[in-house]
């Protein structure tokens, strides 16, 4: 396969594509896309982080959660309350969102990971449905569907000075920074020994248990870590929107990260970000044309999982394998079998 050896490492095709995407993300404000696209870019990055947090749980540990809207919503509201009721800054808001979701995730996780087999899925969707109902009912706290306007105070960045989140370029880079750091931390987690246990649980839970690992504890760690990053994503999305309402807890929101991850490709972390940008980007235009936007997204997800459960990255890999095979078949030299 195509690859380029450089002093800093080998650049394969996959890495080259990722690098290009990364550079585009980095230069997005510089290439003059306008304020609205900067706003959308920041928002989609936050959604991408939301999707990636789901992938951490589903893609690596095999735990399918339809309750991530709870973490997204709790993070968003925790940050909102920290900012609006206690006058804290944006970074403290993120920290509060992080800690509040951890707290909630430990509580809910203790219930969810203990239920056997597919009970986990059911419990998470139950949690989402109950949270949705509570958020609508107690509109005095959540602001109901009318919501709460969130004004984010200026953010002081060490060495660089103070910036307003109403500055689209700063808002974009602030989001990009937080998302990249979060993605990096998640990536470190999944390649760590703990992440290895996550994957072992996904592949063969019984064997993991037999080898003496406390499977329940590891599942809880995955659940809590995943929830905490979803909470940060929720807080970020609120900063960008400057607004929050009870529909953060709706089941549609719970399905979003599932769709991002399935479209982008599971067990990749970055796939969910690509999926989020594609879906939300397309949705932004489609929803202007038709009311049936959610219907189209649902159908897309359905077709996707039935036809290509590995998502776009799966399609991409399959395409690469096909090219590789064709190249190999046309070469007469005896082949050396290697593992991919």
């Amino acid at each position, binding site marked *: 396969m195509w690859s380029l050896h450089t002093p800093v490492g080998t650049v394969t095709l996959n890495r080259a594509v990722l690098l290009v995407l990364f550079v585009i993300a980095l230069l997005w404000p510089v290439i003059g896309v306008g304020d609205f696209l900067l706003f959308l870019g920041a928002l989609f990055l936050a959604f991408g982080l939301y999707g990636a947090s789901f992938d951490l749980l589903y893609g690596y540990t095999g735990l399918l959660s339809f309750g991530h809207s709870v973490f997204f919503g709790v993070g968003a509201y925790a940050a909102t309350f920290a900012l609006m009721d206690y006058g804290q800054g944006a970074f403290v808001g993120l920290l509060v969102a992080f800690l509040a979701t951890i707290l909630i995730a430990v509580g809910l996780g203790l219930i969810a990971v*203990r239920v056997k087999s597919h009970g986990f899925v059911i419990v998470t969707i139950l949690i989402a449905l109950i949270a949705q109902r509570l958020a609508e009912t107690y509109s005095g706290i959540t602001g109901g569907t009318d919501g709460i306007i969130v004004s984010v105070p200026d953010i002081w960045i060490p060495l660089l000075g103070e910036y307003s989140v109403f500055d689209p370029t700063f808002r974009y880079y602030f989001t990009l920074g937080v998302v990249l750091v979060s993605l990096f931390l998640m990536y470190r987690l999944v390649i760590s020994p703990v992440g290895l246990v996550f994957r072992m649980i996904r592949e063969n839970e019984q064997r993991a248990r037999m080898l003496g690992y406390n499977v329940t504890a590891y599942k809880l760690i995955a659940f809590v870590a995943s929830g905490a990053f979803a909470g940060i994503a929720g807080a970020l999305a609120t900063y960008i929107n400057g607004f929050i309402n009870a529909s953060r807890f709706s089941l549609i929101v719970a399905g979003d990260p599932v769709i991002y991850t399935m479209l982008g490709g599971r067990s990749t972390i970055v796939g969910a970000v690509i999926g989020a940008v594609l879906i939300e980007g397309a949705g932004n235009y489609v929803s202007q044309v038709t009311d*049936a936007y959610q219907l189209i997204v649902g159908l897309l*997800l*359905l077709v996707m*999982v039935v036809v290509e459960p590995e998502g776009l990255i799966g399609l991409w890999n399959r395409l690469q394998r096909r090219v590789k095979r064709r190249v190999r078949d046309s070469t007469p030299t005896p082949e050396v079998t290697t593992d991919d």
Partner: protein
Amino acid sequence: MPTGEQILIAVLNGVTWGLIIALIALGLNLIFGLLKVVNLAHGSLYMLGAVGGWFVIGATGSFLVAAVVAPLAVGFLGMVIERVALRPIEEDIPTTLIATFALLIVLDQIGLLVFGPGTRSVSAPIQGSVTLAGITYPLYRLSVAVVSLGLMGALYLFLHRTRYGMWMRGVRQDLEMASALGIPRSQVYVVTFGLGAGLAALAGVLLSPIVGVNHLMGLDILAVAFIVVIVGGLGSLKGVLVASLVYALVENIGTLYITTVDARVLTLSLMIAFVIVRPDGLFEEGLG
């Protein structure tokens, strides 16, 4: 303090409500027991039953026709769903869950597109009320309870006295052995899904005069159906019936003392507390 009459009404409401929930959750658990698929779109099938019934009543003016046509149509839809969407991925259970979630979105959106937002009421086909032990109770609700019981009896007979029922129990008990003995597994799956979908739709039609028709009604019932399935034990039909009745009775009696929303939250919390103590539910899996 609520009077004895109020308590009696709450108990009657609880039993009726519980039997209907059981009807929906039985289909859910039947599908899980055989296909190992947690059908997240089950509430949407219930909603489609009610919406379909509303349209049939509008066209024919007959509740009875609606109660036959809508469940049959939704049952057929369920069979198509199993064949087209679930069959290709039946080896990969998590993926089937995502597929049924996608179906939930799709069906609810279709409900919204054809039915529109807002709740519409359906008049009960049986008017009047009965007086017993000093209280008057709507005759229709009693009929719903009786019909639900009858349907559950019919389901029991179907599972134990018919060829398909025997096949279903066989596939569930030992898939490989059943296949080796020539039981058409795929056909059994299709019928099971269709049956579950039809039962949910029928429950939707039966409940529409009591709760009204709304394109989001599926989500409400989904939470309740899932909690009784978890508490009753995944795959256990007996457990579902017991859990449904307990859930509905606690909730209905609770509303005598606290608000409706608080009663629901309290009941769900109690159920979840039960799940913490006993994660596997009331009964182990068993088709009986």
